[in-house]
């Protein structure tokens, strides 16, 4: 069980401390942690589980804020990590984005939230809707009001008996003048193309995101045209399991507002929408770089926000890169970033240039990996299609909206 949670700013300052059990965890643990973080650099920042001389620490870093939890006993690590992630999500949801100042301005709310989210080291509820019923959200309107009237109350007027609703993820009986529901398919394509230009791995991780503003207790059914392509699925707790198992239909009573209904994976895709072909030839202390980008498999919609970037190896003294389309920048951390945007109709974008190697080096031995980003609006590249969305238990016909979006996730081209 967790014994204590700390929130640290990006300079290592303790912004918040929440003791959870009788075994008080001394703040000096944060000092230890920060010393390690400084001395070991970035690799340390990424380790989610750390053993200190006195405690085991879990850390999650979001927007420069480190969420640190301590324990001295054996426990499921994923539970602690998952919980910290939820804390970060809930805080960011509540406070409308996160940074050091927001936390410092609203630390009372953070304390209140933590109080309800975890008791005696064991997580209670992290469901935003339930929390919202217990602790009022400081929204812009109330902020403006408080400035005007000088009244800064953030107590929700209704203080319900904790979870009064029979569906735990849903607020009791919300009412909307305009009933609307939006379903978005958001996909990320992860691909690896090896040195020989072969697509060694290509898969899509997708989410069905729903934004629901529906009155009462609506019952929704969402079906897809081709569920057979899905490799593995995970559901929001509101999804009923049986209809999915028998007919691959998502039947659910939605939470109010934005939520992730389902996530899925589609593996073994055969092709990517664009190609990136890097070519490196080195000799005589320099290395010539040529990168070609073009459309391989037209998705039927515009591909935009294309960028290609790679890390210049340490042994490079200088780089001179130009492109026939878009802009090329060498950033401070020795990253070469080529922003292409859209691919023009009349020519294939290319970037070329020369890297000058350290004196003494004839040829380049370390080959950079090119990371590619792009975005395609209006299409889910996995091929998943929504068939229909039925709504029951609603007084009047709601507005239904559907969208799709695919972007590059870990899209790598090795050279």
């Amino acid at each position, binding site marked *: 069980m967790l014994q204590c949670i700390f929130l640290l700013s990006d300079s290592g300052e303790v912004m918040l401390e929440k003791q959870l059990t009788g075994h008080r965890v001394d703040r000096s643990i944060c000092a230890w942690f920060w010393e390690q973080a400084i001395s070991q650099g970035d690799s340390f920042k990424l380790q*989610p589980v750390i053993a200190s001389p006195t405690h085991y620490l879990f850390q999650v870093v979001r927007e420069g804020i480190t969420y640190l939890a301590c324990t001295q006993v054996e426990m499921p690590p*994923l539970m602690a990590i998952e919980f910290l992630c939820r804390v970060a999500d809930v805080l960011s949801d509540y406070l409308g984005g996160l940074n050091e100042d927001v936390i410092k301005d609203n630390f009372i709310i953070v*304390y209140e939230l933590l109080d309800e989210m975890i008791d005696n080291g064991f997580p209670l*509820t992290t469901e935003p809707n339930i929390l919202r019923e217990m602790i009022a959200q400081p929204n812009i309107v109330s902020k403006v009001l408080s400035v005007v009237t000088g009244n800064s109350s953030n107590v929700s007027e209704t203080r319900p008996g904790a979870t009064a609703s029979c569906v735990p993820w849903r607020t009791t009986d919300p009412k909307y003048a305009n009933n609307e529901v939006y379903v978005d398919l958001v996909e990320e394509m992860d691909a690896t193309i090896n040195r020989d230009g072969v697509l060694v791995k290509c898969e899509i991780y997708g989410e069905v995101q729903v934004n629901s503003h529906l009155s009462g207790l609506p019952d929704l059914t969402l079906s897809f045209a081709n569920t057979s392509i899905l490799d593995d699925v995970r559901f929001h707790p509101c999804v009923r399991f049986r209809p999915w198992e028998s007919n691959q239909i998502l039947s659910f009573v939605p939470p109010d507002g934005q939520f992730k209904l389902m996530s899925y994976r589609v593996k073994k895709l055969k092709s990517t929408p664009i190609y990136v072909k890097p070519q490196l030839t080195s000799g005589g202390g320099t290395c010539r770089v040529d990168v070609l980008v073009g459309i391989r498999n037209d998705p039927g919609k515009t591909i935009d926000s294309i960028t290609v970037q790679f890390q210049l190896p340490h042994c490079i003294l200088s780089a001179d890169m130009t492109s026939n389309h878009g802009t090329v920048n060498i950033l401070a951390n020795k990253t070469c970033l080529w922003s292409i945007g859209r691919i023009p109709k009349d020519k294939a974008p290319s970037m070329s240039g020369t890297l000058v190697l350290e004196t003494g080096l004839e040829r380049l031995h370390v080959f950079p990996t090119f990371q590619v980003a792009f975005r395609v609006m209006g299409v889910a590249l996995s091929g998943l299609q929504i068939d229909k969305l039925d709504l029951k238990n609603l007084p009047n016909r709601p507005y239904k909206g559907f969208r799709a979006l695919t972007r590059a996730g870990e899209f790598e081209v090795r050279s």
Partner: protein
Amino acid sequence: MAPPAQSQRSPSPSQPSGKGEVSDLKSQLRQLAGSRAPGIDDSKRELFKKVISYMTVGIDVSSLFGEMVMCSATSDIVLKKMCYLYVGNYAKVNPDLALLTINFLQRDCKDEDPMIRGLALRSLCSLRVANLVEYLVGPLGSGLKDNNNYVRTVAVMGVLKLYHISASTCVDADFPAMLKHSMLNDSDAQVVANCLSALQEIWSSEASSSEEASREREALLSKPVVYYFLNRIKEFSEWAQCLVLELVGKYVPSETSEIFDIMNLLEDRLQHANGAVVLATIKVFLQLTLSMTDVHQQVYERIKAPLLTLVSSGSPEQSYAVLSHLHLLVMRAPFIFSSDYKHFYCQYNEPSYVKKLKLEMLTAVANESNTYEIVTELCEYAANVDIPIARESIRAVGKIALQQYDVNAIVDRLLQFLEMEKDYVTAEALVLVKDLLRKYPQWSQDCIAVVGNISSKNIQEPKAKAALIWMLGEYSQDMHDAPYILESLIENWEDEHSAEVRLHLLTAVMKCFFKRPPETQKALGAALAAGLADFHQDVHDRALFYYRLLQYNVSVAQRVVDPPKQAVSVFADTQSSEIKDRIFDEFNSLSVVYQKPSYMFTDKEHRGPFEFSDELGHLSIGAESTGHASQSSLAIDDLLGLGLPVAPAPAPSPPLLKLNSKAVLDPGTFQQKWRQLPISLSQEYSVSPRGVAALTAPQALLRHMQGHSIHCIASGGQSPNYKFFFFAQKAEESSTFLVECIINTSSAKAQIKIKADDQSASEAFSTLFQSALSEFGLP
């Protein structure tokens, strides 16, 4: 290590230094305390906020305790919450002042708003002041019966807090029984879940002293209770589900059909959005089917997809935790994952500890069908910017080669590494080629041709140098200039800092001498002379040993130093399978992340003060040295020819059994083991009359046995029959002995049943146990 003192924080202008501001606040609070003016709550709120922010920054504001309490009479819930927070933080250090708060907290516990009732009760229980516990019993009792579920949820946790402050008060007030009733009857799932977690904790720590508690703890794992929870599982919050699943994981079903029922019921939990639930479910599945080999394998197939999705969908932090578990499963059953090898391909942006896990998994899942692709992928990593990972991947290629699949293509790749002109790549590849040759001597022609072209001057790393020297000695008849290379190396004897290299050099020059005496004689003489003068004991001894061997008889020397070798079939594994099994039993725990069973890191005795921080910082380096230590020592044995049938090693005398005096075993594991293991010994001893007399206080026996490193986990019974459960662990390894001991004082007999991880040692343990028992009661 004592945690370092708080680091010096530079006082920034926005942070008050303390004193002046605190006394300012004090007077302001005083002014507000009695006032009932409208809008007073807002000014209070501002002040409270300041106080709390000081507290958060670390300034001691405990001197305001009195004023804060005075101001706490309010109906504003946020003010109340701030006040509770403050009180909870400082009550423990100011027990006298804490008494002041009891009054208003108790009043709030009767408030009409359930939220305030709950919050007040929570704060009341969080004061943690021992002499105030009497004030807790009343509010807790009514809290448990409150008609609002929020208050009941808080009250249940309050009982647990009370138990930790004063166990006797909690038990005397009969709270555990009340919790049990709520657990089985309350309509609210969160109340039920909290009861479960509280009772588990209370009964586990009570169990050692009360038989009733240990019975109750057992009852939690009984069929009706477990089924009760299973049937309600969907009502629970995701976190409570984790708790229930943990309980189910400990349950041992009596029939096979039960196992399938449970798995059917829980199957949809594998698709839960919360990774912790998914992992807890997987643990249940794995535990339930442990004894059914084919179903166990189907379970692997079933959990594969959810695990792989978890890895790719979550935040990097979650991925790592899941990946560690996946790693464990892959290592246990690589063949099941062999078609999913692409999931273990490393991504450019991943941190190196993730890449390292993935490399190990890639190595494990390689088989006939995917070796080519995996090796191709691994070879690309050799040009990686991250040098430790580049090294790891070359090693991985070598390991795959040693797993004997399609060596043909791999040898070519390894030889390409040798030509890559990067010193660390060459170094790693040389070590691998050496291992490969020891296993597949038939490849010597191809390898030697390439190795011969490598200049020994370019090799700096001792391991690589030793490998090269070994090859020079071993294949000196095929390598044209082997004697001359060795000679030049011996000339630089003084500059060679690594003893390992010098040892290899001695052996290699000996071997070379047997094959090409005229060319090597001079070098041999120089090497022996240098070796005899060496300050390193091992080098000196080996030189002396060779010298005397040669003096005695050259052909005997050849038989000893350079005998015909058999190819090595399997290289020693670094982690024992026992430890791996143990980690597997602790699936879904920190052990998996650390790749060590929990006793190795939760028990202070097993770790030095700095071990962990160091180890984590240099993850890859640590593994590097341990991974090779066993191999290189093997290599040396081989070089000396000690592993050959010349002189079979004397059979090791049965070692005296030594027990670990700090053994740890949690009751859950004990129970599980007790059910799983067969009885390996069942005996009856007689107990000395003195022992019987001393047994009037059973605690004395526990202390006595502890002195012999045999620990009691549960005891009970009344005269004349006493029952004890003991456990002990071997000092060197994690092998455990479990003992059930029933002593009848009227017949002066002790019946014992021993169960052991290592059956062969149970006889020795029994002797030890008996002698310990017979000493009991002696002055």
